[in-house]
């Protein structure tokens, strides 16, 4: 076991981890932050996407020890300071961008990373950016609408 220290959602945290402890295990089992989901554990579904130093990564494909000293943001850190839903989260609610909700944490984290990089993406860019986030319920249209709305753009999408 080795000690690991990082910042998670703005708070300094430390813990004991094995070399093989994945970041997602440290977040969920070590810190009790169970909003980050493990959908496939084969790094395909994107339900575990978190931000490490501002970049979207799959928390099931990085060891906790690799995040030593990093700034990590999870879905628990996405609400506004007063606890209300952030613009992206509110847009997912307004546009029914989820059904079962299992993939939603990863979708919101990917959407936030996209909009940080590209504040006014086209619909095609949104779909392209979500390539690594699988949703088995919605058919994606409402997720795309929610992200377009969160970027302050028209939500009419070409696929309909």
């Amino acid at each position, binding site marked *: 076991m*080795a000690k690991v220290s990082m910042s998670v959602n703005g708070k300094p945290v430390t813990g004991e981890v*094995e*070399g*093989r402890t*994945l970041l997602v295990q440290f977040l969920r089992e070590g810190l009790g932050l169970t909003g980050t989901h493990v959908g496939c*554990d*084969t*790094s395909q579904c*994107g339900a575990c*996407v978190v931000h*490490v130093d501002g*970049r*979207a*990564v*799959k928390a*099931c*494909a*990085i*060891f906790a*020890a*690799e995040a*030593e000293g990093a700034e990590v943001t999870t879905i628990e850190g996405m609400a506004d300071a007063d606890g209300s839903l952030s613009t992206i989260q509110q847009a997912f609610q307004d546009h029914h961008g989820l059904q079962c909700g299992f993939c939603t944490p990863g979708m919101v984290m*990917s959407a936030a*990373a*996209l909009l940080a990089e590209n504040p006014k993406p086209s619909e095609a860019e949104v779909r392209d*950016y979500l*390539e*690594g*986030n699988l949703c088995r319920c919605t058919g994606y249209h409402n997720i795309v609408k929610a992200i377009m709305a969160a970027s302050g753009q028209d939500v009419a999408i070409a696929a309909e």
Partner: protein
Amino acid sequence: MYAFEFDRPATLDEAIALMSEEEAQALGGGQTLIPTLKQRLAAPARLVSLTAIPELAGVCVADDGALCVGATTTHAAIAQEAAAHYPALAALAGNIGDPAVRNRGTIGGSVANNDPSACYPAAVLASGATIKTANREIAADDFFEGMFATALEEGEIVTEIRFPVPEKAAYMKFEQPASRFALVGVFVAKFAGGVRVAVTGASEEGVFRWTEAEEALSANFSPDAISGLSLAADNMIGDLHGTPEYRAHLAKVMTGRAVAAAG
């Protein structure tokens, strides 16, 4: 995943020392290695993470105009930082996997792994790049030795890939839609001294140069130049995604598209 010792050295010298230990394995971005460890297809005694070594990351331009890419530079960083100097390489990097994979995966990891369907080996071979390790330089033509096999010695660490920049180049990938690896990908690079064509995803031997197409394109750099050529299906990969004949045909089609895209 079996247990292992984990090290995250801050200097190359420390990494080299750790890699000399029994059953040590270098870790780049882990986007292939971590899933492999989970499936217990690899069981190293020690993982040596290279991503905390500052001098191994980043893109620069050498005095001779070559593009130097540090081994732990991520696909996302290459997509951005190589765009001005070597746009075909940047475009290839920006279309690997998905955004979260591109934020972790590294060029050194991909090249050292030499997956027969990975994108970078095609760029490295077609560019005639040089693979630098901690103690030597290896020409791309000597580096790739077959499926998942390279000229790297036990414990040898890739530090940099140095790409001569072609006059014109393009990479065309026919994507396997679930894995986003290349079902077949072709990188075409036109230099003053001739054209190099490298094909990934197709052969049981891993990435290879299509020398007939290189000769034809060196004489006439247009898609028509290869219309009379065909690749033999012997040694091509056959699986549920495509037969050897299909891959051989696809390699020719993607070569033509790459030439057209390179202009």
